[in-house]
């Protein structure tokens, strides 16, 4: 039965919010509309440096950086369902690779990017290879352990990594003759990274590998019965996630010009995980929402600084119980 009475019945059954969400989801389900939405966002992002001051640019550059990290962790946690509590380790590998190669070996920054990707991938294989067949509970703690090991190693290997003080005075990259030194430069660079990361994420999501990840996440044993190599599939996810973080790490090192082991503590991994979970695991627009929320929240509510993690922790619990699919709406079928 069409008409107003049907809608009313719908609303009564499902709740107003759910219906609005479904509308939102259906609206964006159309590919062209999605592209259009992203297109508008991109235009707005490109226009921002004209009107925003350095502070605003700094905040958004930071957000872009976290979007890339969230997209990477999303592959591991959202697509493949692996709880990684030590994601910052890969980010560290990328940052230190760039830092060490440019400062001590005099490499050109742009060549360090494939190097960082390679080392991150190796790290992913080394860490993931033996451990991904473990139960998710164990895997979580093991990844945390690896995160700590990476941080401690970075702190102790003074000759290589600068020890506890870290690497300082990392050279700024030069792009077509222009030295990247102002925040607006990095804004555009990180924006480009976000675009690339989004593109790769969507391609992965819609690929055979992406489907395999979904099956494994839903029911590992059934997936295995269907012929999917469970461990290999998980390893691909893990390594992809590592590469995302590694490449992000390169640019982080270039922008900060100084990196130290303190940036790669457990809190960093937990923070990225929270953004992924709150935004909506497995959903790409959710990653944008989550990362923006993460960075903008403490800036908007200035006094909330120290209570931030507390609030996020509560949100995490509340989310898991009442809204496990995160902030971004989900298809209901």
């Amino acid at each position, binding site marked *: 039965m069409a008409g107003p009475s049907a809608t009313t019945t719908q609303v009564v059954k499902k709740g107003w919010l759910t219906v609005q969400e479904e509308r939102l989801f259906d609206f964006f389900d159309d590919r062209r509309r999605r592209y259009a939405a992203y297109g508008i966002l991109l235009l707005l992002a490109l226009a921002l440096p004209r009107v925003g001051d*350095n*502070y605003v640019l700094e905040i958004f550059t*930071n957000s872009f950086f976290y979007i890339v990290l969230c997209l990477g962790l999303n592959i591991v946690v959202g697509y493949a369902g692996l709880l990684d509590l030590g994601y910052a380790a890969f980010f560290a590998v990328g940052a230190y690779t760039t830092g060490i190669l440019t400062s001590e070996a005099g490499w050109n920054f742009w060549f360090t990017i494939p190097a960082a990707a390679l080392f991150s991938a190796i790290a992913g294989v080394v860490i993931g290879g033996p451990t991904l067949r473990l139960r998710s509970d164990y895997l979580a703690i093991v990844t945390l352990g690896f995160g700590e090991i990476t941080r401690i190693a970075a702190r102790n290997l003074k000759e290589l990594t600068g*020890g*506890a003080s870290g690497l*300082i005075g990392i050279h700024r990259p030069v792009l077509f003759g222009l030295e990247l030194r102002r925040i607006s430069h990095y804004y555009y660079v990180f924006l480009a990274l976000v675009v690339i990361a989004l593109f790769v994420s969507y391609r992965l999501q819609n690929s055979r590998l992406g489907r395999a990840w979904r099956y494994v996440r839903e029911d590992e044993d059934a997936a295995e019965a269907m012929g999917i190599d469970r461990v290999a599939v998980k390893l691909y996810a893990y390594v992809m996630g590592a590469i995302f973080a590694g490449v992000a790490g390169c640019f982080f090192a270039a922008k900060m010009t100084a990196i130290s082991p*303190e940036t790669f503590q457990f809190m960093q991994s937990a923070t990225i995980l929270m953004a992924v979970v709150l935004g909506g695991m497995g959903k790409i627009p959710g990653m944008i929402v989550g990362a923006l929320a993460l960075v903008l929240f403490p800036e908007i509510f200035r006094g909330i600084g120290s209570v931030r993690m507390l609030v996020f922790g509560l949100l995490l619990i509340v989310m898991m119980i009442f809204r496990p699919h995160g902030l971004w709406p989900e298809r209901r079928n």
Partner: protein
Amino acid sequence: MKTTALLFAAAVLLVGSPTGPARADIKVGIMVPTTGSEATYGKDMENAINMAVEEINAKGGVLGQKFTTVTGDDGCDPQMATAAASKIVSSGVDGVVGGYCSGATLPTLKIYADAGVPIIIPAANSTKFIDLNPGNAFLINALGNYQVDTAMALFKKLGAKKIAIVHQGDGYSEDLASLTKKRWTEAGNQVVAYELVNKGEQDDSAVVTRIKSQSPDLVFWTAYYADGALLIKQLRAAGYKGKITVGDGSTDAKLIELSGKAADGVNALSNPLPEFLPKGKKFIEEYKAKFHVDPGPYSALSYDGMNLLCDAIKRAGTVDKKAVAAALKATKDFQGISGSISFTDKNLLAHSNFVVLVVKGGKFQLAQ
């Protein structure tokens, strides 16, 4: 209805928009940790700077203008610090006073340098600042190498030949530890143990046993008070009878509170604490009256930092950042309550301002 509302809104915006008045204020940025584990130090520094600002403004300001401040929270974290520095620069400051954690302050120097803003640093003092200073940072707390001078003189006085050095694995303490080790061994002495204590870790039994097994004459702790107190307690509980010295990162009343009786006789290296300065008494009283707490260890230096900035502006005769930076560089014998301030050609203090304290009867006193 809608159109009227829109017109009204537009009118308000047009009328209310800033017309860019002539600048009547000199803006100073304060960059300190106001959240996180070092927040008490940061707030203390902020208080002292604001106190100086109020005094200056009460006397009419400088060059006919008054000061306003804007605070950025660096949270003792490099990422937060760069965001804070960006924010401060965006608000159009003419100068910055701040910097407590060296690890967080170092990456911000470039941001300030790119904007031409001079920064006076009253607390952070890692030797890394020497090489990595773009030229716009002025350090009014004596650097680690001066602290090592004072430390070595103290060790000699105490008759130590074999020492153990313990740090916490962060930039500041590791820097101080390695510098001390290098110079102590170069002077022909021995470092029999060089250990690390993880921040936040309570059980130091492994370190204590390793130290004890080497029987050093003295243990030198180069990091912060929280973990230092734990180490001191456990050293004494294990029966270590030698001397203990702590670096300026641990020189805080809380060290004594957390160590209890074990703190007796511990030597502490310190930059000028207000209670030991000749002009300190007045400063302490005023600070207490204003903020209802005792001034902290870096309050005197922060206070001096703000006054130094004001003095430099006066000497430059203008608020132009370049001129102010030049005037700062040329500072000769500026009399702050922490002592006389002059800069070397690398913008460092021309002489050490470290003193040696000793814990007696539950309080710090000047050692003789």
